[in-house]
Structure formats: C-alpha cells, structure tokens
C-alpha cells in the first residue's frame, strides 16, 4: 500500500536587504512565527530579482515564490521597486496566461518596521500554497503530453 506523503511546500522568499530582510529579522526578534517552509534569499533590492530566478525556483521544484521589497516611494535606491512592480506585474500576468495558478507568486511591500506584517504575509502565503498543493504545472509546461 502506498503511504500518502505529507505535502511540505518549498517556498522561496526574496527579500531586499534594506526593508524586508530587516522586517524578517524584526519578526524573528519579536518571535512572530511563520512556517519553516519559507526560506529567505537576501538581495540588495527587489529590483535585483530577475524573473529568471523565479522561473528557476519553480523549475527546481518550488511551490511558491514571494518577493518582498520596500514600499513604493521608500526604496533605498529611490526607484528600484518601481521597476520591480512593472516587471512582476508582467511576469505574473504571463504565468496566469500560461495557466499557472496565480496564488503561487506574490509581491509584498514590507518595511523594516513591519515585523508583524512580515509574519502575517508569510503565514497567509504559506496557507495559500498549502491550498494550491504541489506545483506541477510550471515544471511541466514543456513536457510531452
């Protein structure tokens, strides 16, 4: 008999060094928990995140990718997150167009002071990924039917 393996999602969170990564640290020092499925990658700015990285994560088996940066207008580099906003809007729209579930990708603006928001966002996102289950589509788009 096959044993039903419990679904443990793999979730990659890209966090900008100046706001969201600090927000994540604040969540930590405030002991605000969120699931261990979330693994954070530190980048200097959300605009450093190439859509390629997100596709790469999905192709390697990630079930969700979330990108966090400073609030628009508060970017440490003045304008970085404005480009992020356009790029990600386009990427998410394309993924949706290809039939990939919308909930698997997300952009959130989390400031260095928003530890509570960071933890809430991660809890919500992980819950959404549990709801969506394993990501098969994006790894699969080119497989022969």
């Amino acid at each position, binding site marked *: 008999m096959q044993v039903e393996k419990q679904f443990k999602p*793999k979730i*990659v969170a890209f966090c900008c*060094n100046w706001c969201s*990564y*600090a927000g*994540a*640290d604040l*969540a*930590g*020092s405030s*002991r*605000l*928990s*969120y699931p*261990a499925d979330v*693994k*954070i*990658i*530190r*980048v*200097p*700015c959300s*605009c*450093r*995140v*190439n*859509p*390629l*990285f997100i596709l*790469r*994560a999905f192709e*390697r*088996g*990630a079930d969700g990718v979330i990108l966090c940066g400073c609030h628009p207008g508060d970017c*440490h*580099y*003045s*304008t*970085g997150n404005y*480009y992020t906003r356009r*790029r990600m809007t386009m990427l998410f729209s394309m993924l949706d167009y290809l039939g990939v579930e919308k909930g698997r990708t997300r952009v959130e603006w989390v400031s260095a002071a928003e530890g509570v928001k960071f*933890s809430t966002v991660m809890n919500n996102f992980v819950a959404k990924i549990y709801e969506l289950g394993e990501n098969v589509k994006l790894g699969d788009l080119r497989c022969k039917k």
Partner: protein
Amino acid sequence: MQRIGVFVCWCGSNIAATVDVERVAQVMKNEPGVVFSTDYQYMCSEAGQAIIRNAIAEHKLTGIVVCSCSPRMHEATFRKTAQRAGLNPYMVEIANIREQCSWIHKDKEEGTEKAIVLARAALAKVMLNAPLIAGQSSVTKRALVIGGGIAGIQSALDIADAGYEVDIVEKEPTIGGKMSKLDKTFPTLDCSACILTPKMVDAAQNEKITLYTYSEVEEVKGFVGNFNVKIRRKARYVKEDVCTGCGACMQKCPSKKGLNEFNLGLNKRTAIYIPFAQAIPNVAVIDATQCIKIKNNKCGLCDTVCAAKAIDYNQQDEFIEREYGAIVMATGFNPIKLDKFNEYSYAECPDVITSLELERIMNAAGPTGGKLVKMSNGEHPHDITFIQCVGSRDISGRGKCYCSKICCMYTAKHAMLIRDKYPDVNVHVFYIDVRTPGKNFDEFYRRAVEEYSVDYIKGQVGKVYPEGDHLVVQGVDMLANEQIIHKTDMVVLATAIEPDPTARKIASMLTASIDTNDFITEAHPKLRPVESPTAGIFLSGVCQGPKDIPETVAQAGAAAVKVLGLLSKDKLVTNPCVSQSNELLCNGCSMCQNVCPYGAIGYEDKLINDHGIRETRRVAVVNEALCQGCGACTVTCPSGAMDLKGFTNKQIMAEVDAICK
C-alpha cells in the same frame, strides 16, 4: 577548487534551543566543498573568532559560512575576522539561523532541517564568491553650502572654523535669509539683526569662506567626495568687487516703483538698490526688469554718479564650475501663498497682513520706521487680532498637512511686544492649540497671557471682512460655545511655511530624496537626521522640516560636523558589490542606463577583441564610485552582460537551487 569552512553558532541557547547545532555542523561536513565544520557557543566572541581564524590557517580555507544571527548583525564582524586571517572579507557568507529560523520555530526537528537548508544555500553561494576589493575614491577638501540664511551661514562658519574651504551659494543679492527680516527673536526678545549681522560679517570676512550671492546651482555631477557643481552667477549689472556700497546710485535712480522684496513688498525701492543697510555683500544690484537704461537705453544716471565706476549695463550671467567633497542643503522656507484662503480678505485689505509682514512693520528699518500703523491709512491701531494655523494642519488641499511649528511662539512674541510698546492696543489671538515645547517656551507664552493680558481665544476664525475703516472678524469661542463678531483694526495671519521651491529642483540634481511636502528626507528620522540618504549630501535648517532658530543653528552645526567627518578623510572606501558589465556580452542597447538611479552607467566606443574578432563596439561602462549596487541594471540586461558583484546571477540561482533541492 574552493575549500570551505562551516561555523555553526549556538548563540547560547538562542539558536541551540531550537536548532540541533551539532547536527547542522555534522551534516555540513559531508557537503561537497566543505573541508571543515564545527559549532561553538558564541562564534562572535573573541574565542569564537579565534576558532575561525585558526581553521582558515590550518585548513587553508578559501571561504567560510557562518551559521549565526542575521548578517545585518555580525556580517561585518565575521568579514573582519576573515580579513585578519588573511582571507578576503567577501569570501564570507552568513546563514541567518537565528532571526529567520531558531527564533520563529518551536519544533527542533523543523528548525534543524531549515537551518541545514539555509546553511546549504549559503554554502552554494560562497562556492561562487569571488574575492572583492573595495575601491577607493578621493575627497575634494571643499564644501558647498546651498543657501545663505542662518542655517547656511552657521554650517559654513563651523566648516571654515575647522580649516576647510567652503562656498555659500545664495540666490538673493545678500546673505541673511529670513532671519534678517525678523525684528526680535523668541523667547529672549533679543534683536534679530544684532545677533545675525555679526555672523554675516564673520562669513564675509572668513578667508576660508567664499560667498556667491545672487547665484544659483545650475548643475550637479559626480558623487560623494567628488561633486562637480556648476554655479550661475546672475548678472547684477554692478561690478561686485568695485562697488563700495556708498548708495549714491540709489539716491539718483529715477525708477522708484519696484516692490521692496526685503520689506515683502510693503514699500517701494529704486531699480538699483542694496537690499538693506547691513546687506552682505554691501553691493548694489540692478533690477533689469525695472531699469530704464537696460530696458530703453535711456537714463544711465547711476553710472554718472558712481564714483567707483562699478556700473556695467552689459553684464551677463557667468558660470563657474567647482569641485566639492560635500554639499549642505540649507535652502530654507517661505510663507505659503494665501490665494486659496479668500475668507481672510488678505488680498483686498491692506490691514490684513502676515506675521512676517508684521515683523517688517515692527522693525525700525522697516517700511514704517518701526511704528505700528495700519497700512491702509497710517493710523494707530487700537485692536489687533492674530489668527493661528493659517494653512497649517490643513488636509483639505488648501494648505499644508503639517504643523509649521514656529507660529505659536512668534505670535506670542508679537502679542507681547505690541502690548509692551503700545499698552492701549488690545490684542486677541484665535488659536486651535498652543504648542510651546522648548526651553522657556511655555513660560514665554504664559507671560503673554498673565503679564500682558493678551486675550487668547480657543477657536478659529470663519471670515474677516472690511466694514468702514475697520475689519470684522467672525470667529468662535469654543470654550464659551459662542460665535464672536469682533471689530478690529488689524488682522495678522500666522501663515504656514513651506520649503523654498528651489529645494525640489536642487534635490533632484543631487538625487537626494524629497517627501510629499517637498522637505528633504533624512537618511534616518532618528539616527541620521542631518544626512540625506544620498552620500555626501547634508541637511541644515528648514529644508528638512519646520524649525525655529535655535534648532536650525543646532542642526547647522550638526551638519557641519558630518561634513567635517567626510572632508577629514583622505580616501573613501567604496562598496565593492557594484555592477560590472561584460564587454563581450554587452549589446550597447542603453536599457541599463535608463534604469540606473545614480547615472553610474555610461557608454563608450571601445575596441573589443571577441575571440579574435576585433571591432569597435558601443559598450556599457560602470562608474564604480557612483554605483550603489541595487542591481536594477542586471535585470534589465537581456544578455546578462550586466551582473552585480557579490550578488551575481549564478550566486542567486545557486541559492535558489540549494533551497529547492
């Protein structure tokens, strides 16, 4: 081949309680590339650092992974440790297993699993790290202060006192700013000119200070330590170094209908004029829009009477370019325009004035010779009404959302001075709140009420309108719950202040960020209040937010200290995590240039040898001193020619792969 050492910190029980640190160290030992792995109670302690240093030496490590607290906490510490052991400091990666692991997870199994994944990701990254060497850039030992009010003068004096050259650029013909227009200052009631003019003279006589009055910043290039600034010296039509300031020209000038800016247009001045008696420099200037000679080529009287032969009707704007190491913004403020507040009849009634206008009226050098009179008929007023918060704390779109901060105190000052000099004049103040935080401030306000019997009415004014030769103020007394219809002779509006309109223009030249109210943003509201987030730009005075004189002087001094800290360095160490363009891959498309917020990317035609093909190509070149390492360009570049050192495409993808394994 990389030889990596992994160091897992317990952080006492902070990490060890929810992460099995020994297991993490054990698992990491078996990872490819790892030649040494250990754990220790406090890696950041001297003993912990010694473990790292010894391991680097003993195992000939080429890179290290420290599994510990956030890199925001101790990355710098461990980089120094590595450096002391002879390893390039950028061969260090931190796995954040405290803030982002042990502190948020309760289950030890789960925490340990996650810590291992984070350690693997750090390992994957460090395997691709390359030694980076921080660049150095020189520092031009000269500062620029933009704005010659009390803020700018104080910053310049402090910088000059420390022995550095400093230039002041002031757009008006004289330095002195708003403070030179004030009559008395609170809470001590000393004469503004008496305390300001000596400072103005000091600034003029200090050999380290160069004044560029009647000048504006035209263009700013460069970066911290190396700003290149183009200054426009507007034509005065008077040779600054020849004019003796004798004033003979002003006596003879037949064009007398110009509004006297110094007196806020309350009286007239000649076309050639010296703004006020204590102006620095004490040099005349011709208003070209008013001068008959310049407009119609007639007259020329001033030239005839000028013994020094200082008049030059053909003078043109001049441009000078200078290098600076640091720039202080001290662009100051203005009262807002009242054209959206028709209810106060400011435009129609000459007896409705702003507080700054009252300063000029009260001043012995002002339009009325210091006599308090109604501007409409020159009569002595018997009743004066002050209205507070005109345009401040206003979110309706007509005014400013913030509190202008100085109005409560100067209104108390005005009320008191009037009652002191003219005890027959009744003074009323309509207020919403009286805000007097500051040393001796509340005592000052209470004196106005208790000693001088100034009538403070809690409530606002709905409208002001003329009736005969009086004014009628319709207001409310909120405490009595009564509407007040009050006959008065003069109304004084405590008008909100706003940053000078040049601030936005200059801030964008400097790439200094600015808030929605056009105040320059500080690098940190609490911990770095006199610096802009853009390196090398410092803030002095009201350009950063409303302030009174003592606060302005304090901030000016603080900004000067920050400037000195910068100028006293011979070299600045630059962040080595900057973008780098691979010439062989660059298409020359300029997209990266579009997104760079620092103007750090230029294009050059270069002779490229691409595997034997030699040709001239247009390629991107990154100015490493300007680049701040955000990475916007790297994503824009479709060919991947642009990459960010320390956060390369390959490194980030290696982390992704490690996490998703």
